[in-house]
């Protein structure tokens, strides 16, 4: 990072005579009231040198301290003097330099301006994006200079858009016209705002027309992005519902256990993820921390599966054939598991981080950012589904599970070790709940109530799909997810949720056995 910056600066230095950061400047940037600090940043960046960039970077990362009128940059364990770069000893009364949002914004812009000349294309692309937000005439020369040097087509295009955005305010109608035409290619919502704003005050007919055309084009691409976003969020919600329901599709759908502790088995998976994260933090080098989640997947599965196996052996197995009693017993189990977690981990939520590769998102269609964590979860849900479908439909264990749950004693007479099959099946369902918990830890709370928040949804999905029908579960999850998101965009979250529930009530009237009902005689048997 620092190295890149330095080489970026090198380019700048070619163009203008650099001016070295002084101790006073550093102090001015770090202390005082925000207005003065911003002014100081402006001055320093006008002719930046490597030290300035380094210092700004440290500020942006909250690594700057002051003590007794001196400024220090903290680097790991040591402190250095930002001006000389020499190691310095940090006084014990040193105070953090606190930058508020406004200050941080200025620092980022300043850094972007410097990075515009970085040899690293991705750095430059990022810098253009950062600068494109607010068109500012003062930046025009810088952008033009960057445009001259730029070779990368995509970045050029972005730069041109940024320039056009600035030129839209130009005195010269010809320039405005060109700018308006150029902006038709933009897909950013900021452009629309800009166009709307400028259109109101545009005197020139031709420019007006061009602006209107540009506006239409921007709006249509924005509308597409919005629709795509809605579908994505629907699928994403659906994938979460699916994960949450899949385990239940086994323990309840196949085995007939009204498993009120399903949510708590998810919770165990989530806490297992938390524990793995903690172990990585404590015992492994920071570079591998990002992979904790990969390690957490089997651990979460295993922890929940083990708990499931214990529950099956200890309680559930005595209740086969008495499904309503399983409701009562698993309700009791769920109370105990929640309290157990409160006793062990505390009543408050615990923090589970997205690994860096799952943070942020990928920008598509210009303005739509799809978060990585959601994309990964969609993929994960698909993988779990595929694995489970294979296991249930294609393997002997799957066959035994289905057979045993339909007629336990006869399956036993056929030579199926029903006790083992039951335990395995319940552990499998529980393990999948654990996987769901692991996934949920990436988007929501990890706390003692995690399970309670999803249990109702989980049952609705399984039942709506048709009990024992894996395909039904899938359709129900995705359908509810997308329906919910479309309604939410239209009626708000609360009414959407109510509408979805009412939809379920009405839908079941039409299909009293769920989406994928078993038809014919076998339904009664």
């Amino acid at each position: 990072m620092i190295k890149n910056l330095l080489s970026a600066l090198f380019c700048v230095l070619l163009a203008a005579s650099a001016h070295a950061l002084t101790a006073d400047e550093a102090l001015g940037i770090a202390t005082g009231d925000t207005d003065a600090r911003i002014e100081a940043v402006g001055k320093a960046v006008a002719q930046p040198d490597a030290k300035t960039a380094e210092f700004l970077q440290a500020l942006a990362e909250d690594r700057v301290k002051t003590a007794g009128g001196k400024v220090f940059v903290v680097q790991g364990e040591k402190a250095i003097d930002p001006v000389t770069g020499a190691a310095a000893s940090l006084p014990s009364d040193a105070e953090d330099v606190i930058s508020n949002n406004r200050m941080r914004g200025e620092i980022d812009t300043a850094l972007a301006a410097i990075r515009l000349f970085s040899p690293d294309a991705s750095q430059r692309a990022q810098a253009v994006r950062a600068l494109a937000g607010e068109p500012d005439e003062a930046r025009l020369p810088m952008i033009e200079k960057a445009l001259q040097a730029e070779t990368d087509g995509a970045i050029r295009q972005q730069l041109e858009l940024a320039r056009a955005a600035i030129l839209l305010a130009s005195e010269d109608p010809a320039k405005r016209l060109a700018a308006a035409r150029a902006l038709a290619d933009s897909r950013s919502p900021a452009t629309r705002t800009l166009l709307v704003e400028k259109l109101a005050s545009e005197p020139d007919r031709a420019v007006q027309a061009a602006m209107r055309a540009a506006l239409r084009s921007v709006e249509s691409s924005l509308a597409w992005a919005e629709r795509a976003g809605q579908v994505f969020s629907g699928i994403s919600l659906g994938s979460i519902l699916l994960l949450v329901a899949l385990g239940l599709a086994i323990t309840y759908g196949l085995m007939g256990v009204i498993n009120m502790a399903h949510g708590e088995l998810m919770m165990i998976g989530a806490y297992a993820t938390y524990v793995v994260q903690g172990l990585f933090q404590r015992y492994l080098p920071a570079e591998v921390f990002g992979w904790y989640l990969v390690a957490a997947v089997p651990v979460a599965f295993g922890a929940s599966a083990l708990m499931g196996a214990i529950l099956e052996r200890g309680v559930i197995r005595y209740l086969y054939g008495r499904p309503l009693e399983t409701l009562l017993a698993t309700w009791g189990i769920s109370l105990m598991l929640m309290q157990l977690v409160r006793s062990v981990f505390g009543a408050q939520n615990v923090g589970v981080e997205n690994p860096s590769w799952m943070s942020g998102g990928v920008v598509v269609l210009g303005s739509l950012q799809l978060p990585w964590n959601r994309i990964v979860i969609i993929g994960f849900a698909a993988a779990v589904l595929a694995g489970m479908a294979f296991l249930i439909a294609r393997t002997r264990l799957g066959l035994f599970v289905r057979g045993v749950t339909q007629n336990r004693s006869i399956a036993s007479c056929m030579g199926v070790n029903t006790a083992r099959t039951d335990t395995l099946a319940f552990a499998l369902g529980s393990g999948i709940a654990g996987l769901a918990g692991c996934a949920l830890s990436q988007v929501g709370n990890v706390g003692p109530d995690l399970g309670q928040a999803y249990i109702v949804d989980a049952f609705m999905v399984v039942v709506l799909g048709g009990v024992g029908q894996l395909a039904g579960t899938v359709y129900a999850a995705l359908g509810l997810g997308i329906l919910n998101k479309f309604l939410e965009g239209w009626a708000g979250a609360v009414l959407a949720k109510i509408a979805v529930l009412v939809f379920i009530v009405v839908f079941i009237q039409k299909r009293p056995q769920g989406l994928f009902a078993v038809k014919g005689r076998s339904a009664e048997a």
Partner: protein
Amino acid sequence: QSGNTIKVGILHSLSGTMAISETVLKDTALMAIEEINAKGGVLGRKLEPVVVDPASNWPLFAEKTRQLMTQDKVAAIFGCWTSVSRKSVLPVVEELNGLLFYPVQYEGEELSKNVFYTGAAPNQQAIPAVEYLMSKDGGGAKRFVLLGTDYVYPRTTNKILRAFLKSKGVKDSDIDEKYTPFGHSDYQTIVADIKKFSAGGKTAVISTINGDSNVPFYKELGNAGLKAKDVPVVAFSVGEEELRGVDTKPLVGHLAAWNYFMSVKNPANDEFTKKWAAYAKAKNIAGHKDKPLTNDPMEATYIGIYMWKQAVEKAKSTDVDKVIAAMGGQTFKAPSGFTAKMDEKNHHLHKPVFIGEVRADGQFNVVWKTPGPVKAKPWSPYIEGNDKKKDEPDGKSKV
């Protein structure tokens, strides 16, 4: 009073949905009581805490209150978090002429002779926060998304804020009010909407999202690329405890308004946080023994207990009416670094207001604060008719 001890009730949910927030208040209260006992108790008698679990069930709050007051005969109750639990308890404490200390920020619009409110009223939290957002340093926000969980505290707060914003010349079209159900966990649409709304001008989000939904909200916010410097979010229900469950790196710069932050530097807070860390370790309090955190309601609980102690000592009795009379004007050197004072009349504290920005480590940088404590206005002047309200409870209990 039985024997040599004075019983006090602690009425916080230790199970159910609110346990997440309330459990730690129970521990804070126990810590304060232990401290007081270590220094000889009150009026020479030791305090005996009676802990009950109302289990996040509002009618159970009322039942437990009656039990604490009639069976255990406690001298005062420290408890409740949600407004609805307080409202459930209120008729009982009024009927039996008891004392409740309520430690959480709330929507105001209430005054009871039998309740002391040690959390913030809207003017001690929400209004200053919005003023800050509108200031240059706060980013000069022109448009506002009022986002909350669908219940009374957010609704009321937003109503007050809307009136306030209007008085500052913000148009209705620049205000977007949105609610999510309790326990809502999918904020994709909301965040997308905020993004869209923010394209229309400098936007800030004022969040009254209730505890549990915050984590998914902030996670979504972080991953959808909405940065604090573009669209700052100021929250009234997010403190150090809530951020425990979030990866705060992408959230740096988002804001919260409270009357106390763990990160404020002053001797009183140093002592408070150290005591808490030691207590959590000694009592093996899950979560806090490894990562002790303090927050505003804990501070408010702590202040409440000490002020009650002082009032009892002043009144030389635990008699409720005498204690109520002695409460007015009590002061306490609070961990916030300021001296909190119980208003002579309106049963609320005078408290300073801090605005903090989230740091990467889950703590807050105080970026703004009031010069001194602010008097609470439980009857918000932004609500019609409240100007006629008396700023003190009716003298008689309301039976």
